């Protein structure tokens, strides 16, 4: 009888321990939120919310802080990176599921996984030493001479091409998220039942028509969810953009201007913040970034869940 009690006791103990370990995740998330709010309170009190996110000034000397320039940089680089990465990664996924000969499939999958495993600091450093000179010397002058001549659109490419700018940062960022998006898209494409594909082939559809009219509609929810996750990651990516964005607080109108994202501002200025208000404003930026990416990722989870439970 007492042996039975001991066993029950041990089982309960194990249950409580594992429960505690799982709760760490919840505690950390709540902890992040609470501590960021607490640390940024002076800035929240002084600048408010709407005033903070609409003020483009970031002036540590006079202690006037606004998030608009960093937010702008974050959103522009993310959107541009997504615009480059979405077509490429869908193309890769189509290649891997529909076109790739079987002997290449494994190698291609490994290559994409390796690209995803390279740490972001390596992308950033490579961007600074290799990609930025190429962009500054070749690609950007070329863009200025071609698209730059078109009225209105041309102003996007005005200024001196230095290579340290929004365009280079977005390119590096897109290279970083391509493998992630491609593997999600591939996984969802593979979920399309073979029978559906075969019936389309059976009525004489070409391969592209099968992809366009069967595979893509079938997997659009999954692909969309994957893209939103990738966007959540791109919003918070630090090292890949820190090297090549220039950390300049301005609302840049040209893609060839330096800019700053929330992450770059934090990475460059956090250890240098010398006043309380400066520090609190940086924490405020971190809080905004945390809430933004958390909501984006939660929305992605929601989309994927809706889809998997019809």
């Amino acid at each position: 009888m007492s042996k039975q009690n001991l066993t029950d006791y041990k089982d309960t103990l194990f249950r409580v321990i594992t429960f505690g370990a799982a709760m760490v995740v919840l505690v950390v998330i709540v902890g992040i939120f609470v501590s960021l709010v607490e640390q940024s309170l002076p800035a929240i009190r002084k600048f408010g919310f709407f005033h903070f996110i609409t003020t483009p000034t970031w002036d540590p000397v006079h202690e006037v802080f606004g998030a608009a320039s960093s937010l702008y940089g974050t959103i522009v680089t993310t959107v541009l990176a997504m615009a480059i990465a979405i077509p490429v990664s869908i193309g890769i996924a189509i290649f891997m599921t529909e076109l790739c000969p079987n002997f290449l499939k494994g190698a291609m999958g490994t290559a994409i996984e390796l690209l995803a495993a390279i740490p972001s600091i390596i992308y950033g450093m490579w961007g600074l030493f290799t990609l930025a000179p190429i962009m500054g010397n070749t690609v950007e002058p070329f863009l200025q001479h071609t698209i730059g001549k078109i009225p209105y659109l041309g102003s996007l490419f005005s200024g001196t091409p230095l290579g340290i700018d929004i365009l280079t940062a977005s390119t590096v960022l897109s290279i970083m998220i391509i493998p992630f998006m491609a593997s999600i898209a591939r996984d969802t494409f593979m979920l399309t039942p073979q029978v559906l594909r075969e019936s389309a082939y059976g009525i004489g559809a070409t391969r592209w028509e099968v992809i366009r009219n069967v595979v893509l509609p079938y997997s659009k929810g999954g692909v969309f969810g994957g893209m939103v996750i990738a966007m959540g990651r791109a919003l918070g990516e630090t090292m890949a953009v820190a090297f090549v964005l220039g950390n300049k607080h301005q609302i840049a109108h040209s893609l060839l201007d330096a800019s700053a994202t929330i992450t770059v501002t934090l990475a460059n200025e956090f250890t240098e913040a010398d006043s309380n208000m400066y520090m609190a404003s940086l924490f405020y930026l971190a809080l905004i970034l945390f809430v933004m990416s958390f909501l984006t990722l939660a929305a992605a989870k929601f989309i994927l869940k809706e889809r998997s439970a019809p």
Partner: protein
Amino acid sequence: MNILTKRKIQNKMALSLSVLAAAIGLFWLFFILWDIFRHGMSFITMDLFTKDPMPPGFKGGGLRNAFVGQMLITLVAMVIGIPFGILGGTFLSEYGRHSRLGRFISTLSDIMVSVPSIVIGTFVYAIMVRPIGHFNGWAGGVALAIIMIPVVIRTTEDMMSLVPWSLREAAFALGAPYYKVITQVVYRGAATGIFTGILLSIARVAGETAPLLFTSFNNSFFTTNLNESTPSLTVTIFQYAMGPYDDWHGMAWAAALVITVAILLVTVAGRLLIKWRYRN
């Protein structure tokens, strides 16, 4: 006939574009790897691993301090992250399998995996650096552990869920209590998968830079004392690559090569292990 040709041309064009996309993806991979090898190889010397950095401007020196610091910080992260991760994953896969709370935490962990790592750095700064008053290696370890825990939790949960329920029932039928079933049946069935998850999570945190910037910071001297700021390879790369000296850049390339090769090897090993275990 005309429409048929049009469809064929459309088909060819779309498929060519997709091949082009795949080529672009592979191009970046080989471009980046080749570049790292090309620049890094010439700076890989014995000195890199056995000597500490020289003062700025002087020739020579190595990154021994950063290698040791990186290992210490990663070790702290592992000691904290692995037990919490495995136990938490156990709860999600077993006791909390059908509970609302279990599902909720599982989703939260998924989100946590992608939360910006720099935010975790600011959080750890607020709880472990600001109160103490100076940067310290422990904080870096804790920051990496916070990134590691959700990764290990999710892979552990997935791998344990793959163990067939009937196996557990067989053990229940022998009168085994649940904790014994978990530790002696489920853990054994899922061991390879859990181990792989741990490998991949180590590869993930070993390349993290952002959460270390304001926690362990950097140190150009050799130290094994985690109470002071501790150097790490990644932060050193950041500092050296942004710095003005050519030999700093060379060292940054060398460190980048070492860290990339190590991470890719671990990643490949993990994938092979999983394939070998679940090949049927």
